[in-house]
Each structure stands twice: as C-alpha cells, then as structure tokens.
C-alpha cells in the first residue's frame, strides 16, 4: 500500500520533527495509517490511552462535522492530539505532537496536508464516477 497517495501525504507529514504520529481516521476505525515503525516510539508507549481518548473525540466529530466543525484538539500527558476534519465526512486527519510544539508552523502544514488529502479524495471520487 506504499503507493496509496494519502499514505504518502502522511509519510511526508511524519518527516516533520514535531509530528510524532499521524493518520486518517474516523470513529472506531483507522482509514489510512503509515507503517507504525515510522511513529515516534514514545507515542507507542501511551498509544492505548490516546486511542481511547481519540475514539471519544470522534463521537463529537461525528455529531458536528456536518455542522462545519473544522478542527478539534486535546492535550493528554505530554502530547497534543490534533484533529483536522475532512469536509463533509466523519473522517479526520489526526496528528500527535509534543505539548510544547510551535503549533502555528504545524498548523500550516496540517492544513496543507488536509487540502492535499481532499484533492486526492475528490480525484478518486471523480475517477470512480467516470468508471461507473
């Protein structure tokens, strides 16, 4: 699955020092996730609790994504988890970053990644329509 274009966007994000882990996910389901070996090992130590908290946040994402919810985030221990909701879906681009990161810079690249993922999804939808 290395040639999944969305996975490539995520791998690109992971190369940034402060992105410790990232994925595209929805409630109880991870849609696209890069090889976990690329994640920062420190995140894997707290992954279970972060994953549970993420699932709870996705209840809110599901409820309000259609109402225009754009981003949501929470801080847990020494980490922050950022959710960038993909428009008109219950999916979000999720990134785990250290709590003391320069969030403005990360925010810009998260938004660029969200736009890239959107473009890929739109392109894939169009191709499906044409093939149908």
């Amino acid at each position, binding site marked *: 699955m290395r040639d999944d274009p969305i996975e490539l966007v995520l791998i*690109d994000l992971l*190369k*940034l*020092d402060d992105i410790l882990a990232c994925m595209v996910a929805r409630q109880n389901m991870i849609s696209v996730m890069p090889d976990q070996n690329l994640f920062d090992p420190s995140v894997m130590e707290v992954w279970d609790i972060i994953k549970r908290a993420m699932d709870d946040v996705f209840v809110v994402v599901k409820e309000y994504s259609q109402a225009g919810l754009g981003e949501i985030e929470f801080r847990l221990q020494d980490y922050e988890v950022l959710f960038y909701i993909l428009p008109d879906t219950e999916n979000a681009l999720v990134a785990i970053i250290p*709590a*003391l990161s*320069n*969030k*403005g*810079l*990360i*925010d*810009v*690249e*998260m*938004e*660029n990644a969200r736009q890239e993922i959107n473009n890929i999804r739109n392109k894939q939808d169009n191709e499906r329509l044409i093939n149908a």
Partner: protein
Amino acid sequence: MTRKWDARDAGREVAREAIQSLKTPPNFVLLFSTIHYDKHGGFDEFLKGVWDVLPEGTPLLGGTVPGFINNFGCYARGATALAVSCPHMDVVMSMGKNTKRNPYKAVKQSADMLQKGFEKSQYQHKFIFNFVSGPEVIKIPGQGYKKVVDSGLISKFILPAYGITQYFLQKGLGREDEIFEKIVEYFPESSMILGTANDDNRGISNYQFYNKSLLTNSMVNLGISTDLEFDVCTTHGMTPSGIDFEITKLSRNGHIIHKINNKPAVQELNRLLKWPKGFLNEKTMTHTILYYPISLRRHGREVPAVLTFILKDSILIPCVIDKGTVSILTVSGKKLVHAMQENLQYCQALKPEFGIVSTCTTILETLGYKINIIKDEISNYFQDKPFIMFLSLGEGTYSPEKDITYANMSFNTAIFGKSKK
C-alpha cells in the same frame, strides 16, 4: 518553489522554477528555505543544487526562515525563490560577518561594498534589502534550550554570561535592530526592508545564503538601483490595552528590563496583567505573553515588541530600548488582517511588478493556517506578479520620508512597480 525533501533535488527544483519564465538572465535571485534541509542532505548540497541550475554569476542571496508565503500558498516546509529580470536595474551584493559579536563592524564591511556598487549605477532610486542572522537561544547547562528560566541562581549566572556568550559564542540576540539603525546612517537616502534568518522558531541555528557561500552570524544585503517605482511600508494591528507602566531599571545594553514601577519586572508585569504568580512558564509562554506585546521607545520612536525571554525577575527583550513609559498592547486576528489590508492600501498607487514582504513568526503562531487570509489579501494585490512573504523574528522598513520602523508582529512590504498615474 519546492516541497522536495532531498536538499540537492530541492535546490535544483526551486532554482529551475524561479527562472523558468524569465526571458533574460535574472538580475538577482532571493532564496528562502526552511531549516529542514539541514537534516536532509545539508545546505551545502541545497546550494549546490541551486547552482546546478542557476546561470553562473547570478547574484543570489537569502537564508533560512521558519516559513513563507508566495503566490502558491503558505508553507512551513520547503524553499521558495524570487528571480527578477529587469533591464532598468543595477544590483550590488554585500555582506558582513560576526553580526552578534560586533554588529557595527559587520555593517561597515557590508556598507563599504554597497557604496562601491551604488557609485557605478546611473539610476537614482536606491533600495536595500537587509537580511540578518536572527537570535539563537543560549543552551543552559543541565537545562537545555529554555525561554523561561525560573531559577534565581541560574538567572544570576545567565545575566552576566549573556554578554560573554554573545561575544565569544555568538549566541543570543540577533542585534538586527542595531544593524538596521546603523545601515540607515550610511544610506539615509535609500529605502530599505529588514528581515532575519531563523530556524523553525526554536532559535537553535540559522543560515544566510550569499552566492555560493553558506554563512552563519552574518548579514547579507542586496542593493538595487532602478528606475522602477517602489515604496516600503510597515503596519501592525496592535492597539493599546490601557495598561501602562514605567521601566525604572534597564540593563546598560538596553536589552533587559530589571524593574517596572520600581518593582521586580516579572512580578509587576503579572500584577498588571492580573496573572497569578508563576503563570509565565515554558508551557504557557507561547499562549500568553506573545499576545501582549509592549510598546517600547527607542530614540523617540515607538517600537512594538514581544517579550521573548524571562529570566526569573527580569525580562529580556529582542531590541535595544530606552527607559520610560510603556504601554501594553493587544492584538487580534481581525486586527492583523486589517493591518495587512492597510499596508496594501498604502501601495495602491503602484501597479506592482514584484514584492518582498517580511513579517513576524509570532503572527503565524497567532493565526495558524488562517494566515491564508493574509495570503489571499496579498495575492489579490499582486494578481499574477510574484511576491514572497517570509517569516522573521525582528523586521522593519525605512524610507527617508517615514524614518525607521522596527517592530515585532508587523507586516513590512517593499513593492516595486510602475505608477498607475
């Protein structure tokens, strides 16, 4: 621009894209990159990639920045370049070394080179682009890189050590404000813009590009003589909060506020802002104090600046200031957008050909990806003409009509074009 990760490939791509639409070789190339190539091949390789493509002898200047905005979007990773080809333009490059140790000597070195170049030009209108190595945080033994030092003992060690590290290690403030004041003294008839090199806002290292050389702790300058019209403008969205105080004890070098209203500076600042004791710490720093810039004074001019380092009871500020009454300012996202609009409104008489804009990294920290609103404003003004806005830590403009405006959290434009009249 490029988003490639490999330094050599990125250098080639950014140069190729910058010059591909030019019909004649460029008069100069401005090149800005984020710090990431340091770990992905290194900046020597990056510059080699650029020179694989760029015509030999092209004046090239720039450096590392936390991020940039151009005609294509806003980015905190990658590189961007602006190549200008204009028949009515002479260009001179200059540089000065050891800016943190001896900024005045660096300015003299650079100014002498600029002066010689300017003398050869037939064009009367002169412009200088100033790009200076920005601040680098001092690594505190046993503590690492910190913006808030709450230990009195360590602060006592740092305060005198600050001058020593500045001189011997060239770690500390960028001193770009002093450099800017000095270069204006050399060229009072020229208009100027100022920006600083930085990394990803950690303040650990930064580089300057000067033709094929990779420099540190240096200033690089681009002098332009042209018959194009140009103008510079600085705006910021800060307004007084109504809270004033008096700086009553300032360090001899004008960089450290020890006492406010005759009380220890940090305690008194907390009281004025109604913040509890200990509220300012490493965790809260970027979410709190950056939103309360203060209006300092320097030679009678207003200098809006952010308070970047806390040393127990003292506050280190990024520029040299004078004692006196100070106002705490506030800023909002809306006011920042308005400040950009106001800036571009000032240049409505010009039909732009290209533009250089420096702005403060803290504006990006404030707006996040909503800085795209600023990008849209600038894009609407420039339409299909190229511009680069780069993020800085200490920026400003100068013109003979408007004098020096040095500020943090500001928008600084240098716009070249033709008069609409």
